[in-house]
């Protein structure tokens, strides 16, 4: 009944991408996403090229494609929204598979889908090749406010603890004959959630006290920043550079 070893989003392998320092990869991801977002809408060939570049990085990373694809379900709400756009938008109509949809909405939806999918896939690739701790160290190195880094660090540290606690509460509920089915079980599950919230809050206070008693005064020791070599920066910059060229080319064609 122990917690899972390692992080579920991380894929253990030894690749050039795994070896890059966290801050290089975080910066590369943010730049890549910005370039994708800046690509003009309706330039579907450009999104195709972005995807191709990302697949290239995936191959280098040695992370199996199904590992990323399975975790893409987090995108579902955006997909639903993108699919609804053509029906909700106004303006000139066009026919798709016998359905009358808004032309502007159709392109907006498709573009949103392309940009969202590329962003999610790239983020998952970062998570698959970088231990959570290295991402935090990278954010620290990129001068993200220390409080934000600390909050994220605690979240990663205690997410599994809260998860395990929730699991034990579930077992204790079921042992008293509770079956979670239908609307009528919701109040019970909600109360469990409330109890878990209070307990996590109290645990937070205890952790804070324990930190204070070991001399915590608002600043955490550094997570151990690793300097990146020029070669590493050049490697990291490759994907965003390709994405920038694609985006610029798309604007050139659009103009």
């Amino acid at each position, binding site marked *: *009944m122990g917690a899972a070893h390692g992080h579920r989003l991380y894929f253990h392998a030894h690749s050039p991408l795994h070896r890059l320092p966290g801050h290089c990869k975080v910066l590369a991801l943010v730049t890549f996403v910005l370039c994708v977002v800046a690509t003009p809408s309706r330039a579907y060939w450009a999104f195709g090229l972005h995807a191709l570049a990302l697949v290239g990085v995936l191959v280098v990373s040695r992370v199996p494609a199904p590992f990323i694809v399975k975790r893409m379900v987090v995108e579902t709400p955006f997909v639903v929204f993108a699919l609804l756009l053509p029906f909700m938008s106004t303006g000139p109509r066009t026919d798709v598979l016998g359905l009358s949809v808004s032309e502007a909405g159709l392109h907006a939806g498709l573009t949103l889908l392309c940009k969202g999918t590329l962003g999610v896939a790239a983020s998952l690739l970062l998570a698959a090749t970088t231990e959570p701790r290295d991402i935090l160290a990278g954010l620290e190195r990129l001068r993200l406010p220390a409080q934000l880094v600390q909050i994220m660090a605690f979240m990663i540290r205690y997410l599994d603890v809260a998860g395990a*606690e929730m699991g*034990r*509460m579930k*077992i*204790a*509920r*079921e*042992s*008293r*004959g*509770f*079956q979670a089915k239908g609307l009528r079980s919701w109040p*019970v599950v909600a*109360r*469990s959630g*409330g*109890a*878990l919230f*209070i*307990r996590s809050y*109290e645990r937070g206070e205890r952790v804070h006290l324990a930190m204070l008693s070991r001399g915590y005064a608002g600043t955490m020791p550094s997570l151990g920043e690793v300097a990146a070599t020029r070669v590493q920066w050049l490697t990291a910059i490759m994907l965003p550079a390709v994405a920038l060229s694609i985006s610029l080319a798309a604007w050139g064609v659009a103009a």
Partner: protein
Amino acid sequence: MSTPVLDVRGLAFAYADGHQALYGVDLHVHRGERVALLGPNGAGKTTLVLHLNGILTAARGSVRVTGLQVTRQNMQEIRRRVGVVFQDPDDQLFMPTVRDDVAFGPANLGIRGDELDARVADALDQVGMRTFADRPPHHLSFGQRRRVAVATVLAMRPEILVLDEPSSNLDPAARRELADILTGLEVTLLMVTHDLPYALQLCDRSVVLSEGVIVADGATVDVLTDEATMRAHRLELPFGFDPRRAQAGR
């Protein structure tokens, strides 16, 4: 002989990650018996307990509770018959008041109205916590929460009460109070514990589980004085504790 309350045969189980926790456990507990389940950390005690009320289902072998086999179809009835009190009362208590929490189990069994109130009052009486019925559980002391956790299960009128480490984290007074309560209950008892004096005080019979099999089963005083078995399975008596003298003083 009568049908055992608990009849475990050849129970083997491995977790999804491949870790094998039980390698063929045989255990029979008869009505009115009080049995201590002893064993070192990682012996498979908790895994065994989770099989008794069907949270885990047997990979091989079987578990029967007063003749009824534990299967997916009769889970509700199994959970009425087997009352498990978990080690951390905070895992068990999550309702706004003690009363709501004790009512949770019987309400799941479909009991309503006056009978439900009577069961709650009765269960709280048995653990001496009736006057705390309207208090929120997180405002109680740890010992009180453990007693309420016992009441939440007693309210289901189980045929066997399974306690996981009932004396852990209790101060000596709360430990003794809980022992008094448990002694007074007229129920079949299976108690998982590291607290060997507590096992001797409350249970006539002890079973030792080690590395997924039962390695000893007999009168508690005999098990605790069998030095070879005790040493082989990382069981140690507290400093200065003599089971024979304690038994004589019972």
